[in-house]
């Protein structure tokens, strides 16, 4: 409470501004999710090199450069679509949104190919060793979040294409975009831990 306001009436016209509940709620959720990921990341780091049997990350992991580039650039495309809907440019909005989804799908496809190779070719499953357990859990947890994000974005895209997602919903879209940014940031951490430190 500032000294200036003490003892004075709150001027009626003085704006009483509070943060939007959607953003506060999403930020809170992100804090909670971060704690969830932290635990999985810590477990991954703790178990690096502790597997009793092979295969080791160095033997079987390939760095998913394409997927990573796609996912990270989708943060840019979703930011463009946020910008577009704020300014009421609905076609640009739908376009950038579709691009975001496409990039996300490419990322997921990359993960699917990687997992297929690991399971079929290298015989690494979640039961094989500690590396398998921690790897599939951590990357899988992230992938679950990507899929969740993609589903939400797809619903929005379908509504937008049907002209049912007006510009007045931009605030809600911003909340979804916030989630998507979070998913991207988590990937930076997961990528660093799994493919850089852990390899």
């Amino acid at each position: 409470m500032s000294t200036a306001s003490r003892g004075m009436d709150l001027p009626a016209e003085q704006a009483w501004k509070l943060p939007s509940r959607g953003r506060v709620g999403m930020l809170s959720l992100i804090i909670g999710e971060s704690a969830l990921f932290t635990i999985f990341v810590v477990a991954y780091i703790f178990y690096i090199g502790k597997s009793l049997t092979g295969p080791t990350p160095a033997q079987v992991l390939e760095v998913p450069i394409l997927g990573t580039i796609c996912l990270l650039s989708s943060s840019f495309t979703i930011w463009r679509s946020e910008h577009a809907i704020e300014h009421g440019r609905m076609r640009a909005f739908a376009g950038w949104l579709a691009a975001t989804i496409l990039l996300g799908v490419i990322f997921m496809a990359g993960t699917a190919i990687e997992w297929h190779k690991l399971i079929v070719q290298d015989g690494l499953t979640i039961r094989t060793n500690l590396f398998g357990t921690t790897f599939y859990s951590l990357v899988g947890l992230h992938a679950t979040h990507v899929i969740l994000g993609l589903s939400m974005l797809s619903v929005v895209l379908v509504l937008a294409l049907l002209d049912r997602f007006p510009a007045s919903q931009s605030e809600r879209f911003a909340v979804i975009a916030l989630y998507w940014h979070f998913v991207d940031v988590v990937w930076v951490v997961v990528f660093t831990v799994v493919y850089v430190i852990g390899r």
Partner: protein
Amino acid sequence: MSSEEKNPHASENTGVVALPANTAWPVVLAFGATLCFASLVMNPGVGIAGIVLVVVALVGWVRQIFPHEHHEDVPMVAHATIVTTARTEVGRIQLSEVQRSYLPIESYPIASGIKGGIAGGIAMIFPAVLFGWLTQHSIWYAVNLLGGAGAAYWTNPTTAYIAAFHWSGLWIAVVIHAVICLLVGLLYGALLPMWPRHPILLGGILAPVLWTGVLHSVLWFINPAFANRIAWGWFAASQLFFGIVAGLVVARTGKIQTRQPLPFALRMGIEAKELMSTEQEDEK
């Protein structure tokens, strides 16, 4: 959020309040999710039912809030709430026109305590180093006693070892010394104004003597290696040095006004004789 979102429950016209409509989708979603998890311990059929419920509930939920939240209007019933109390009067502390406020009237700024702590801490180094020099011909002796033999876990150190220079001893000693001097300085800054007279006597002499006495009786347990080698005369001297310097620095700092016109008794919140008499007068 858009402006109508800013206050989701705003009333459009007086007499009616728009509130979120009751909905069954949350409970259906919760039940479906529980079934999904329970299917692990039950059977897959439970899980399928759960997934169906979750999907149905999610669709229903989205339709509830999209594009606009579903509201229902609740009629407002006129109800004049009158806030009253039987306790209409408020007791006052009579020493000032300001009845309710902060304690004490004027006080040293908190920074003065920090300054006092720093000054006292620096002053204290001299007798301590002098003690090491005179008894062991080493300026590091006192430092290592505090930092090395004291806190770091040197096992069975010899006197010569303590008298030599050690980085670990130095930095641990510096940390302990700095932290404790700052804290005690803060305490001086806070407490000295409560004894308005003779700050030097109290903070400079009485407090160090008390502190030395307490340490003398417990130090052998806190830290026997330290206690075995300590020279209490020198120790007391350096404490007094600290106390007088810190007390002087604190007392010389100008007092600042707080809006708390109360005597020591009330400031501590311990004594309330004045307070009580005021109240009783008021009650009569």
